[in-house]
Structures are given as C-alpha cells and as structure tokens.
C-alpha cells in the first residue's frame, strides 16, 4: 500500500522557517524512496503561507488553524497533531530539528506511540526497510538505526542535511485542507521573549575570527590566542562550553544558540566541530582547524588543518606571523 508521509512546517509570524523547506525536500525524497505521497502540515498559517507551501509538489497541505495555536505551546501542538495522527495514522512524520520541534515532538511521539529518530542526517533503503543515519557523541561518530515494530515513525531532520534546492515545485498547487482538531490546552502561560546576552559584541561583520574551544583548557590559557587575534586583526569567538564555563562572556558564543558568522577566515582552535557549532560558522570562506584529534569533525569542513597540541601550535603561529611582519 502507498505510504503516507507528513511534513510538519515550522513558521513564525507568517514566515516559513528555512528548515521547513529542507523538510519538504526530505519528505519528497522519502516518498519517492518508500513509494508514497507527501503532505505538508501547517500549524496556524494564514492563506498566503498555505499557498506558498502548496506550490511545492505535495499531495495536500493540511492546515491546523486555531487561535490556541498562534503562540506555540507543547500542550496545544501535541493536542492538534496528536488527534490528527491518531485518526489518520500516517506512516512517517518528518519535522525540522529546531529547538521548537525538540521541545514537543518527543512528547507527541510518546502520546501517539510513534517511534522517534531524532536528528536524522540521511536515510536510505536497505532491502525493504528504511535505515536512518544520525550523529552520536557530539558528531564525532554517526550511527545507523532501524525501526522495529509497527506504527508511525517520526524523524526530526538536522539543519543543512537536506538541501532546500532539491525541493520540487508543483505543476499544479496542492489542495489545501483544514485539519480536524482535538482539545487544545495551552500548558504554559507565555510571558515574553528577550535577547539572552548583553549583545555588545557583533561578530557578524568580522573579517577574521579566532574561535576558542574547550580544548584551550581554561581562562588562564587565553593569552597566546589573544595575541594571535591581535596579530591577525581578528575578533575572538567561542564554542558554547567556553561560555558556559565562564572563560569568555556569552556575547562571544558562535552557533545555533549564539551568533551566526561568515568571516573570510575562521580559525577553530580546540573546537571539535559539533553541528550546533558548525551551523554558526560554516558560511566562513576559509576554515582552519587546530586540533590534536585528527578525526575531529571540524576537519571535515576545514580547508586547512594543523594536527597537534594547540599550546605549541598557537605560539608557533604567533612567531611565524611576527617573523613575516
């Protein structure tokens, strides 16, 4: 029997999240692979947004419209999607792996009894089953998983894993349908949204950034890195643990919870290259990794690399720059 695939869109104030389009591309790919149809699910979108989604090659666009869904709460989202999934039993439901999805999708999967494959980076058909690939151990390794048993399978899709460009446009727009909604109970009283840090440092315009990672080892070890930044005319950025440990202030953080930068040169020093860091810096024109572990994922997105102890390599870079000044 033809499989049904749902792709849940994330939007904010009438704009689709970039990763919603990536999810459409993935859903179309999965539909072609398993033999089935893909439909989009739009939560609280207006007609214009529904029409925008319907322009992709899809079976239908299912719209969940209710005042209770305008502001996100897991209670209302799980209520809306849960009753629809229980009634129609789609074979697969795909979600962008955003902070919003990770907040409610596990709970939804638990409530409807669906299997969950978090942070999928690819899938393939092996024999007659779908095998999913996802990062483990901070992206240092990847695991392939299969899903046992019957019933709906959920997957959240990692940022950048499924290129937006590969999403196919429709020849005729998909049908837009209203979704039947169950009880929608907000389980949070929303109070507001605010900038997290002081936001004093703007790294988005920097030409060169020296990115400091946990491998640097402590705030007392920053001296040679500061010298390197000064010699290069660079700004200093950091991975999350450096900030969490208080070695540098929060407005230096680069990554999914921090700033997104795209300098012409990014030096990743003692940074392993977890996806949450990569999404914040992979737009850099040239990436240099300095790391003692040559299998660190950062080398996979770098043009150049130095493998060794950064406490020897950074002073050596400073000396080389001093010599050639």
């Amino acid at each position, binding site marked *: 029997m033809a499989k049904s695939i749902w792709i849940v869109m994330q939007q904010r104030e009438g704009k689709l999240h970039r990763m919603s389009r990536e999810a459409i591309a993935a859903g179309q790919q999965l539909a072609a692979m398993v033999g089935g149809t893909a439909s989009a699910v739009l939560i609280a979108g207006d007609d214009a947004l529904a029409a925008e989604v319907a322009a992709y090659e899809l079976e239908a666009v299912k719209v969940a419209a209710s005042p209770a869904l305008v502001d996100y709460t897991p209670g209302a989202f799980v209520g809306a999607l849960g009753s629809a999934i229980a009634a129609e039993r789609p074979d697969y439901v795909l979600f962008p792996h955003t902070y919003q999805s990770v907040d409610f999708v596990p709970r939804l999967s638990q409530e409807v009894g669906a299997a969950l494959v978090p942070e999928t980076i690819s899938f393939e058909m092996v024999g007659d089953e779908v095998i999913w690939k996802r990062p483990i151990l901070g992206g240092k390794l990847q695991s392939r998983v299969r899903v046992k048993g019957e019933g709906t399978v959920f997957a959240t899709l990692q940022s950048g894993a499924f290129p937006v460009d590969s999403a196919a446009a429709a020849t005729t727009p998909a049908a837009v349908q209203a979704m039947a909604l169950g009880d929608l109970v907000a389980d949070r009283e929303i109070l507001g949204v605010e900038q*997290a840090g002081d936001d004093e440092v703007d790294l988005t315009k920097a030409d060169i950034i020296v990115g400091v990672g946990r491998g640097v080892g402590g705030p007392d070890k920053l001296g040679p890195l500061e010298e390197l930044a000064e010699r290069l005319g660079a700004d200093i950025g950091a991975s999350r643990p450096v900030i969490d440990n208080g070695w540098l202030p929060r407005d230096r953080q680069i990554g999914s919870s921090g700033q997104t930068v795209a300098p012409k040169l990014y030096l990743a020093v003692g940074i392993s290259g977890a996806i949450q860091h990569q999404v914040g810096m992979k737009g850099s024109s040239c990436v240099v990794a300095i790391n003692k572990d040559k299998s660190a994922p950062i080398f996979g997105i770098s043009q150049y690399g130095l493998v060794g102890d950064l406490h020897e390599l950074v002073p050596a870079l400073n000396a080389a720059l001093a010599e050639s000044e």
Partner: protein
Amino acid sequence: MRIAVCIKQVPDAEGRLQVAADGKWIDEDEIKFVINESDQYALEEALTLTEAHGGEVVVFSLGPDRVQDALRKALALGAKRAVHLADSAFHGGDAHATARALAAAIRSEEFDLVLTGAQSDDAGYGATGSMLAGLLGWPHAWLVMGLEVDEGGGSAKVTREMESGMNEFFRLQLPAVIEVQAGLNHPRYASLKGIMQAKRKPVDRPTPADLGLVADEVGMAGSRLEIVDVAFPDSGVGAQIFEGDPATAAKALIEKLRNEARVL
C-alpha cells in the same frame, strides 16, 4: 521540595573513541566516564533549589555497574539518596524505553519536580525528559536556561533558550519535568566532607519487577530503535594538513593563507 534528578553517565568528551568489535557501539574498555554535561547543571539547579526552599534531592540513573561512580559523585555533591536502574534488562534502550523505566522509578515516590539534562552527550536523543513528562502526565520544558519556583511552590517561571541568542519566558504548573541546558548555573565541586558522607548514603537498585514493569517493556527489548552500526563520519575531501614540527607547520599554513587562500 522533593526533586528527582536524572543523571546519565557518558564517555568523557576528551576521550579517544574507537568503534567496538561488534560495530554497534564504541569500545568502552579504555575510556573514562563522567556525568553528562547538562545533567551536572540539572543537579546543581536542584541542590540550589532545595537549599532555598528546603527539601531533598534524589538522583536516578540507568546504566551498568560503572554508573555507581556517577551516583557517588552526585551524593558527594549533596543528593540525599540514589536510585540505580542497574538490572541488565534496563540496558541498551532508546529514549522511550529509558523514559519508561525512569518514570516507573520516579512514580514510586512523590516529587514536586523532576530535572533532567537537555541532551545526553552520547546517544543525544534530546527526548528522554519530555517522554518522561508524558508518562507522568506533567508539563515539561526542554532547553531551560532559567528556573524560579514561585512562592508556595505551585508554579515556576521558566526561561527557555531559542535559536540565535533569544530566550523565551513562561510560567508552568508544578509538578513538571524541566530539561536543563548547560550554562544556567555554576556547578559546585564536591567537598571532602561530602565525599565522606556519600559513602554512607543509600543507593537502591530496583529490578523491573520491583517497579511493576515486565522486562520486555524496557531496555533493548522495549525499544523501537535498534542500532545497525556506528562509524566515523566520512568527512569528504577534508582539510589539507600541514605536518612537521610546530614552527614548520605554522609557517606553511601562513604561507597558504597568504598566497593560496588569499585571506591574510
């Protein structure tokens, strides 16, 4: 307040990883284990809350015998008691199966709050806490960067991290499951006195039957996900690496950045 904290023991981020002989996980023999990073922050938050509001912290961990070290450490930091889901029937589960076991253990006591980490540094499902909340029928929040329990303890104000450096704020009814993100506080160090006291604190080791579970609801048997294999990522073309002693390598790199990449 009685607070349950779920802590997972995971491989040290610093350790050198190797794929195990069966290809399905990493070789655990040569590596060090630590308390999962975000769980350390969850434990600190729980200890701070009970210091402010009174009450006690009980830590829960599912895993093999080595997990005792993590539990002793949590007891040394100030947790009152520990529950170790050590039975091999519990092991190797996906987030659903692990949440089912933790929920059964937590449900056999009364708690006002459950704290977990946002994500484990090994499996990285980012899901166990939310599933646990579903099983308990409590509200939850994932990726929490701030938690203030209101006067009276019936509700809490929560700060949740959003993408790109924004935070959102909301109020939740308690009891709830709060999934803590690294960075929301400054975890303490264990004192010598704490380490001594920890030796005498009780660690329960319930079996699935003790918790009213049948063995095939939990662990590998109770999981929908099954690992086919694990491998290092194929990093594609990869970086051009400069070999040699630091001075030679550094000079070669600077030369390339100037004359090939033209970014200096």
